[in-house]
């Protein structure tokens, strides 16, 4: 049984000169690392100023010593450490080949994020948590060859934080991508969550997946009504995750009556300001 371990630097370590250049060396010098199959990399010092590229390069350069890692999370930081939209990500292009045993990859932050040519035989789960996902990443994912991928969760985010697309970007991605074994589709954290609910419901993946995840966005009764209408057409759906939403109590009650597992927790209320209605996706405010 492998271990889960998180590596990060705090202020004092950062001031003592620790940073992305020293992270891989520190991980490799940890006597426990040989047993670590679930590797989480938190703050690398100044995550807003320094990219994690040196860490990614360090992993690929030492690929044999990271071969036992099955789960990798790069950038596990909260608002205490860095704005998610300020986290300086890197180029993952070389990582896919370097870690053939990797099963789960979670990336937090989308600034300077490049996935490269995504090709991996064994990856089963890919999650990108960010304040705004760029169209360039959607393009890379469209071409991705991930035959084992079962779970895909993408935080869509907002324009200010990097989402430079529209609902059509997501629609085209779902149409043109090919993940033959996908069972969990997450299109989360959007301020056009109702539109994206429709896009997801019309996608080819709906007949294959068992979990539809539209959480952390501005899903309203409009999106809720659409789910009520369409979901019964897909008996394969077992789980609906819409936690953090803007739906009414009545709509939540109706969704909870569906014969599937529903998470409609964390309701939010829209705010009115100068005659305008304001709603925020979870990771954008």
């Amino acid at each position, binding site marked *: 049984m492998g271990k889960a371990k998180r590596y*990060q*630097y*705090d*202020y*004092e370590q950062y*001031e003592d000169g620790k940073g992305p250049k020293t992270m891989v060396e520190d991980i490799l010098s940890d006597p426990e690392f040989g047993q670590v199959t679930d590797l989480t990399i*938190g*703050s690398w010092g*100044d995550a*807003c*100023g320094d990219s994690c590229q040196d860490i990614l390069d360090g992993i690929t350069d030492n690929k044999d010593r990271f071969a036992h890692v099955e789960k990798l999370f790069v950038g596990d930081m*909260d*608002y*205490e*450490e860095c*704005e998610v939209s*300020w986290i300086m990500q890197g180029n993952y292009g070389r990582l896919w080949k370097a870690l053939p045993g990797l099963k789960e990859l979670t990336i937090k932050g989308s600034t300077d994020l490049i996935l490269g040519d995504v090709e991996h035989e064994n990856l089963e789960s890919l999650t990108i948590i960010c304040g705004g996902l760029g169209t360039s990443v959607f393009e890379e994912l469209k071409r991705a060859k991930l035959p084992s991928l079962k779970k895909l969760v993408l935080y869509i985010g907002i324009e*200010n934080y990097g989402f430079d697309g529209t609902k059509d970007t997501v629609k085209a991605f779902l149409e043109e991508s090919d993940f033959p074994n996908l069972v969990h589709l997450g299109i989360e954290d959007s301020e056009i969550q109702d539109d994206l609910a429709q896009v997801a419901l019309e996608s080819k993946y709906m007949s294959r997946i068992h979990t539809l995840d539209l959480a952390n966005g501005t899903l309203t009764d409009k999106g809720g009504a659409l789910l009520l209408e369409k979901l019964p057409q897909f008996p394969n759906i077992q789980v609906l995750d819409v936690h953090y939403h803007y739906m009414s109590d009545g709509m939540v009650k109706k969704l909870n009556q569906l014969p599937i597992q529903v998470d409609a927790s964390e309701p939010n209320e829209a705010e009115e300001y100068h005659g305008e209605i304001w709603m925020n996706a979870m990771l954008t*405010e």
Partner: protein
Amino acid sequence: MSRLMLLGNPGTKRTRYLEKGAALWGVQLCLLDWKEFPKNLLSQDSGAGPFFLKIDPPLWDSCCLEQLSGLTWEYKENLMELARQGSRGKICFFNDPKTIKALLDKRGCKRRLREMGIPVTEELEFFDWEGGKKEGPGQYPRFSDLLDAMKDQGIFQVFLKPNYGSGAAGVMALRCDPAKGQMVLYTCAAKDSETGRLVNTKRLRRFGDRQQVSDMAQLLLRQDCIAERWYPKAEHNGHSYDLRVVVQDGEVDFALARLSKGPITNLQLNNRPLKAEELGLSDSVWDRVRQICLKAAGCYPGLRSAGIDILLEKGSLRPRVIEMNGQGDLIYQDIYGENRIYQKQGKMMREWQMRRQWEDRIWKNTC
């Protein structure tokens, strides 16, 4: 009978639960209402011997930060008046008013703790407030002074706090990325659209626009405020938290974690409280927290009860004192539970009363 008094506010939770805690020890408190201060204090029978006095904070209902600043000034004057009355030997204070006043000054408190080798959340030097004030009113730092200092000192995230303030009133969490010129500010303060002044609200807002950030921070910088380094706080189940530890007579009587989904952890913001023992911290972390709290309380000999806010750094769980409060003993999770803090205070009052009675007896026998 030796008299025990509370200078406080009738009907409040502080008053009711202290009365309950005292009643368990057979102690009855006489309440002096802040509304009638100082008349009610001065009218105490000087021939009846010294009396014991606990000072609770007065009630303020303003949410305007400038007004709160004025009220704090008035409160400090009242504390000095209490100290003057006490110097005549008539009053035995629970917490000494001079100490309560000293702890209202966050900058002064941090300085003292630092001198005693106690780790605190470090302050950013960016303006000589005392020197600045001497040059006359209107001498305040500009927002750009703060940004320059942050850049020079390589500190890119700070908390701006009114030096004399309590709770989350006016607190701003500011983060800058000098390389890209980005900045973000979290605060519960809002600009009143009519007066243009800062008012306190119970909602945390985030500002990402440079001009808005600058405007908000500049409003706070017009008051005496401190900028302290924003250390990433420890987290529990996806919430960051800090601790409120209540130390009384050299013992930690209560510790509460204040969990938050935002950078400002304060229970007035409807953050989630959790009994600190449920955090699952190791004994060695607790030992360090306990030692720091006892040492901090020991820096103020006139303080029998202190509420100490402790930050645990994310990752290392290294504790630092954020601030101390000479009236930080009201913890809802305690009063609605065992009421341990106020029961202890009841015991302390009973002990004082018994000591007084014993001293009186000795005095009479000697005479």
